[in-house]
């Protein structure tokens, strides 16, 4: 508010009165309005009609004429009004909300007491939720059934696994899809789908433990020499590992089928003698397999989180030096997290390959690693409910937008949502309590514990 008497800046009336004076447009307030309006016009262009090659200015013109501009300008003016004249009220409201939601993070209620008091209620709610999830695919169209299985189911499983690596052990893994690929190709190999004959052909259900072991071994092989690295360095190493796996899948055609991959893979089938079932094109039975695995995995992982393993991971994430000095074998626990994440990814890969009935390298590009990572961060690193909800929501969103906006723009909205989320709610949708405290402490400068533990190690001598 340069050059404006402090009292005059309070009401809209006096602001209007200042219009008479020279160079009103140079006042910060009006300049901010100008900037917002420019942004609104830009948004109208970005979200409006797509340009076509033979009539370059058609879309531009249409977007100016259409109602889109009006909506965006309206939003801009509203934002400006709120920001300029009701800022204090908004700030007060937000702080009141925040107090009510979070409160000062001083004490933690004893978890045992909390669980005990409301155990029946909790189990009831979880049972009802599970029931809803079981019948959910029967109530939607085939398109959404496909989305549920091919996208949401797969990514939820990946995200739950990745959460162990990133959220709990605090290691940034950008090559997570490599293990997914290993799982998928294991399925193709052991069911006899690849150019190479396996020693024995296995049912897909039997492939799952084999793939788990394969991914465990791959995870340990990658992890053992590299888990001394932290933060950014580990991220680059995992990225490199992904690239190796991807290029092997693409170029080692004698084994993997090269770029064309392998088609007509076996699907799941069950033969118990008295009763047998074959999974076919229908996505719903796959959904139930995925749901079953996700539920089992989550139960197992939650046990881990609240055990000595989970505590050791938290300790490593927060202060690796102190953890080691306390007797925690940091490399072993990091390796464990890495291997657990890898094997979860492998299971997802087996189910995916068998559902699709084909594999090819393009299903395993690095973009999917990044997407899985962003789902975990969006949902709330370290929080299983957060990861589940966040992943389901973010996978659902582009599909939901499919018919509502220009299809090419769908991921732009996803990107914008991520940007906004990271600015205003970096802890994620449903953050884990531990993580939230860490972020708050990092913000207050109390601790060096940042999201991914990349901080100068060592200490003063």
């Amino acid at each position: 508010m340069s050059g404006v008497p402090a009292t005059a800046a309070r009401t809209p009336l006096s602001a209007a009165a200042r219009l008479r004076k020279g160079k009103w447009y140079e006042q910060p307030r009006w300049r901010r309005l100008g900037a917002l309006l420019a942004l609104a016009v830009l948004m109208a262009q970005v979200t409006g009609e797509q340009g076509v090659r033979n009539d370059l200015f058609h879309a531009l013109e249409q977007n100016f004429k259409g109602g889109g501009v009006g909506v965006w300008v309206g939003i801009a003016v509203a934002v400006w009004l709120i920001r300029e004249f009701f800022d204090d009220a908004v700030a007060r409201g937000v702080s009141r909300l925040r107090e009510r939601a979070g409160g000062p993070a001083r004490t933690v209620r004893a978890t045992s007491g909390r669980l005990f008091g409301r155990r029946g209620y909790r189990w009831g709610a979880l049972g009802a939720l599970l029931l809803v999830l079981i019948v959910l695919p029967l109530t939607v169209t085939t398109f959404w059934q496909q989305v549920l299985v091919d996208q949401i189911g797969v990514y939820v499983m990946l995200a739950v696994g990745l959460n162990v690596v990133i959220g709990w052990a605090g290691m940034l893994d950008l090559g997570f899809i490599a293990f997914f690929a290993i799982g998928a190709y294991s399925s193709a190999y052991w069911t006899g789908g690849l150019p190479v004959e396996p020693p024995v052909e296995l049912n897909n259900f039997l492939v799952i433990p084999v793939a788990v072991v394969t991914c465990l071994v791959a995870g340990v092989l990658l992890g053992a020499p590299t888990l001394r690295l932290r933060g950014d360095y580990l991220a680059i190493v995992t990225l490199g590992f992904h690239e190796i796996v991807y290029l092997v899948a693409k170029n080692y055609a004698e084994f993997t089928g090269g770029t064309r991959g392998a088609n007509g893979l076996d699907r799941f089938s069950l033969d118990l003698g008295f009763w047998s079932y074959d999974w076919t094109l229908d996505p719903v039975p796959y959904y139930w397999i995925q749901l079953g695995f996700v539920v089992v995995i989550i139960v197992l992982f939650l046990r881990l989180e609240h055990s000595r393993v989970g505590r050791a991971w938290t300790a490593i994430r927060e202060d690796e030096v102190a953890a080691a000095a306390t007797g925690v074998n940091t490399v072993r626990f990091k390796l464990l997290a890495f291997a657990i994440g890898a094997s979860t990814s492998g299971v997802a890969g087996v189910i995916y390959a068998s559902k699709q009935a084909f594999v090819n390298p393009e299903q395993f590009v690095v973009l999917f690693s990044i997407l899985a990572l962003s789902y975990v961060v969006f949902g709330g690193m370290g929080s299983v409910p957060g990861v589940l909800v966040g992943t389901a929501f973010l996978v659902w969103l582009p599909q939901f937008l499919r018919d509502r906006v220009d299809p090419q723009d769908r991921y732009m909205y996803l990107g914008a949502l991520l940007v906004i989320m990271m600015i205003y709610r970096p802890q994620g949708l449903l953050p884990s309590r531990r993580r939230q405290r860490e972020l708050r402490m990092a913000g207050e400068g109390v601790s060096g514990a940042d999201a991914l533990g990349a901080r100068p190690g060592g200490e003063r001598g």
Partner: protein
Amino acid sequence: MTAKATTTDDDVLDASGVTLRFGGLTSLDDVALRMGRGEILAVIGPNGAGKTSLFNSLTGAYVPQEGTITFRSRTGGAHELRGRKPYRVSRLGVARTFQNIRLFGALTVLENVKIAAETRQRTDAISIMLGLPNARRDERAGDEKAHRVLSFVGLEERINELASSLSYGEQRRLEIARALATDPELLLLDEPAAGTNPTEKRDLEHLIRRINAELGVSVLLIEHDMKLVMSVADRVVVLNFGRKIAEGTPAQVQRDAAVIEAYLGASAEEDRAAVADMVAEQTDAGPSAGPSAGSPPEKSPEKEERP
């Protein structure tokens, strides 16, 4: 300069010729250290003398280029600590605290100690995931042990509070509790009294004595607070510029000319009692006072306690 060759089986720690270099900088130069079982030994010295480097070398955080560091456990085995990984050093029975408190701030007090109490447990991830009886037994054992240690240091009231929300003195005690939960035979305390108020200092002194007497833990202590050192330590080792310049009882060390020179940067021709007081004053003044900053001596109202 040479290591004392007279080692007995009763020593808990015997280091000799420990030399640690960072590039051209020699942080520890041929340091020898012998520590009897059940002893409280204090390491003092001006800032940058290599005290924390010594701790880091003993606990595996740094690997000295030369020297041997032998730890003798109660069961009789002699273990070389040099080059051993920090977590292995901890499991042998050597625990430590840090100069700048390093707690797991987002975890509760209980969880902080539990992490340490559980490091020797053997249950694997699979039994934990399946909730097998041995996993549950270990969980309970860790819980009980953590409660025991926390009530020993007097934090049992605050077990469900976040470590970061404790007061400074309580955080120091929690760090000690975390170290004690690993069942150490030798406890290394790096400036445990730094930043604490007089009451907390008295409590700390009491706690160190109890750790030593009731738990039978040998204590190696870095401390700047001379009053605490003089009252609690059986023996004192003085480092300066990475070298050991003196060793002996607190009373002997206080009168040692080399020590006085190290702290004051002047030869000791003055009244010895005044200088001893100045040593206490100087070190209390905090990190900004270098060894050569010879401020005029103020008479301390407190008399030095002698053990």
